[in-house]
């Protein structure tokens, strides 16, 4: 248990609560238990009821505390049991429990920590199985296959979403109606509403960790990504949401959409970073760098103009790598791999590993990476091909094949691949999975036998940019 106490700040929140509030809470709680139950509680006196309410409040706070990095396996098991009993209490009591979340951030912190522990537990379990040299822990893990089980984690998240009727509430809000009306007895309480809301973001994350990228995006159907969204008020939630949405888009080859997500949040962070100098900021810095790495990957697949702030940060952080990615060819492959490893989520397997055959347990990261790298390989010649095509309006295929030192048939395949990949689905409105097919390249070509006809879309002048720059130069 001691491991739980080693967390950081949030304890202070409790001290800030005035006695009046605590008393009110006790009274509320008393009322609520008295309502649902009959005889068993008759014997309890005032003092023990107050004690229970204090305990509950302490458990709420505790659930949001980070588990110590070096927590023992036993502590991890205990933590799981604690979450189960807390969520069981919140979800399965008779009627909604009358508790106030300790802070605005609380619900996010709980869901975040819950999933984080699920994630690290699964990773740890897989590692023990793979290494096969810790018999004692392997045995313990083998005997408790359902601890931190995927079904129970999903169950908690879906139950919180359902109980709070948060989907109905969000849809009512979207239509400009009063969410209270559809909130129901649970959803009208902020404890349930907030837990339900952040469980949606939690699901996005879990689906992504399991490699189900389209379901991850589907999960966010009812949340509108904009500054007014509820998650935007909690910086870590804001950040996490955009990271997972962006990553899922990338894995679905929707690079323009992925870039839009990463750019949005990185610009937001760079504008607000002066207000964020606290412990949270460290983890944000790490994710920040991860997203820059993902931007480098996406820009390599889908060359586009980046915002100046991001471009500068990208060059500083991954300048060399970016050059290699943009050049393409076999030399770019290890760089794609390196950046993917740096920046991908810590993928997990939803089922317990095979403890009896250590070598049969492949790290899920290797699996997802290998699938991703196949697409990288398919595209690796596109930069080279494009750089040549830009120089001509017509070109003989055999001659170009000679320049590139490949067979004509190989060049035909490269041309087809590049042309097919310039069409991408891009979001315009509605759910995140919606979108329209758009042509994303300024370079187009068609083949007449062995003659390549090339046309390059001319970019008109960037007027808005020009006006803005000159306005500020003249008047600032």
């Amino acid at each position, binding site marked *: 248990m001691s491991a739980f106490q080693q967390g950081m700040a949030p304890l202070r929140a409790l001290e800030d609560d005035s006695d009046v509030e605590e008393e009110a809470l006790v009274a509320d709680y008393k009322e609520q238990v008295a309502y649902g139950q009959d005889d068993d509680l008759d014997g309890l006196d005032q003092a023990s009821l107050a004690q229970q309410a204090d305990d509950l409040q302490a458990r709420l706070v505790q659930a949001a505390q980070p588990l110590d990095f070096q927590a023992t396996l036993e502590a991890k098991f205990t933590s799981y049991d604690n979450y189960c009993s807390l969520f069981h209490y919140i979800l399965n009591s008779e009627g909604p429990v009358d508790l106030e979340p300790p802070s605005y951030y609380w619900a996010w912190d709980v869901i975040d920590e819950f999933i984080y522990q699920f994630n690290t537990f699964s990773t740890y379990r897989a590692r023990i199985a793979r290494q096969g040299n810790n018999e004692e822990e392997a045995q313990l893990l083998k005997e408790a296959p359902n601890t931190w089980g995927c*079904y129970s984690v999903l169950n908690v998240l*879906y139950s919180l979403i359902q109980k709070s009727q948060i989907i109905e509430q969000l849809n009512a809000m979207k239509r400009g109606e009063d969410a209270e009306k559809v909130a129901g007895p649970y959803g009208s309480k902020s404890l349930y509403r907030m837990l339900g809301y952040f469980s949606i973001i939690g699901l996005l994350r879990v689906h992504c960790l*399991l*490699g*189900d*990228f*389209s*379901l991850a995006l589907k999960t966010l159907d009812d949340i509108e990504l904009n500054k007014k969204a509820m998650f935007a008020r909690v910086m870590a939630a804001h950040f996490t949401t955009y990271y997972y949405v962006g990553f899922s888009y990338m*894995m*679905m*080859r929707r690079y323009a959409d992925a870039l839009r997500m990463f750019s949005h949040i990185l610009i937001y962070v760079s504008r607000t970073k002066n207000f964020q100098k606290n412990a949270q900021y460290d983890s944000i810095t790490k994710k920040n760098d991860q997203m820059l790495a993902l931007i480098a990957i996406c820009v390599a697949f889908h060359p586009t103009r980046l915002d100046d702030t991001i471009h500068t940060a990208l060059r500083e952080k991954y300048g060399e790598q970016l050059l290699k990615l943009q050049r393409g060819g076999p030399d770019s492959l290890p760089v794609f791999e390196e950046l993917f490893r740096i920046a991908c989520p810590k993928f997990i397997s*939803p*089922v317990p590993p*095979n403890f009896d055959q250590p*070598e*049969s*347990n*492949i790290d899920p990261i*290797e*699996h*997802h990476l*290998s*699938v*991703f790298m*196949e697409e990288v*390989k*398919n595209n690796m010649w596109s930069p080279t091909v494009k750089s040549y095509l830009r120089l001509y309006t017509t070109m003989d295929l055999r001659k170009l094949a000679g320049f590139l030192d490949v067979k004509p*048939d190989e060049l*035909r*395949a490269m*041309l*087809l*691949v590049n*042309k*097919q990949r310039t069409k991408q*689905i891009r979001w315009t409105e509605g759910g995140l*999975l*919606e*979108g*329209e*097919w758009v042509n994303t390249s*300024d370079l*187009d*070509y*068609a*083949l*007449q*036998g062995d003659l390549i*006809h*090339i*046309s390059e879309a*001319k*970019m*008109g*002048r960037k*007027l*808005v940019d020009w*006006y*803005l720059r000159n*306005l500020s130069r003249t008047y600032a």
Partner: protein
Amino acid sequence: MASLLNMNGEDPQERPEQIRNIIGGLERYNPQAAEVLEAYLQQQCEEKFCDCNANRALLKLYQLNPDRIKDEVVTNVLVKTMTQFPSPQFDLAIHLLSPANSNPGPGSTSDLAEAVGKLRVLNSYLESANYSRFWATLEQDNDDIYADLTTDIKGFEDMIRVKIAQLLSQAYREISLSTLEGALGLDGEDKVTQYVTETCGWKIGEGGVVLIPKNAENEAKKTEIREDVSIDMFSRVIKRSWEETA
């Protein structure tokens, strides 16, 4: 038109109400739903349409309940998904398989991993537009492995061939019969001629060149990208200057 708005084979019109309810709700986590989805896959194989979204729900159930995995269902899903190239559909399906079932290696003894490995190779030829290698690989199928894997999918080769022809028509205005022969996996110029004139409706020009009608993709028209400027784009600047003077 609907298919243009989304990924290939993602949400087909043929999807029945029952399936829509399963994949749209919590029923998708019910292990019992696997049977319904398996039957639906069978229907897709026979009626030559593809519902990748529903098939992923099936793979997801297998992911969560490995004891329910049926090898031939997994491979049928993959072969079915393969017909949707070029698209991320095949990859999205592979991401849902367990690493042990999708990466054949020295340590793996599972037949499923072997089969999935074979299909990944086959799919990579389609995704990388190496169509002639795709057909050659199917042809040199010494142990009848590919024949076994694709046997349940009605019209597999035809669907692939039609798709390749369509993709070629988006890049070529004229194409030689010999290039087509390899890309469409047809033996002899007679067969190719017959296929392009009868199935594709293309014409043969002088010197055995196949003429592909003009379409939006094979024109490569010159365009100019212009920026529309509206007052909204300057709203920040205007607002700030207005606030400063006020």
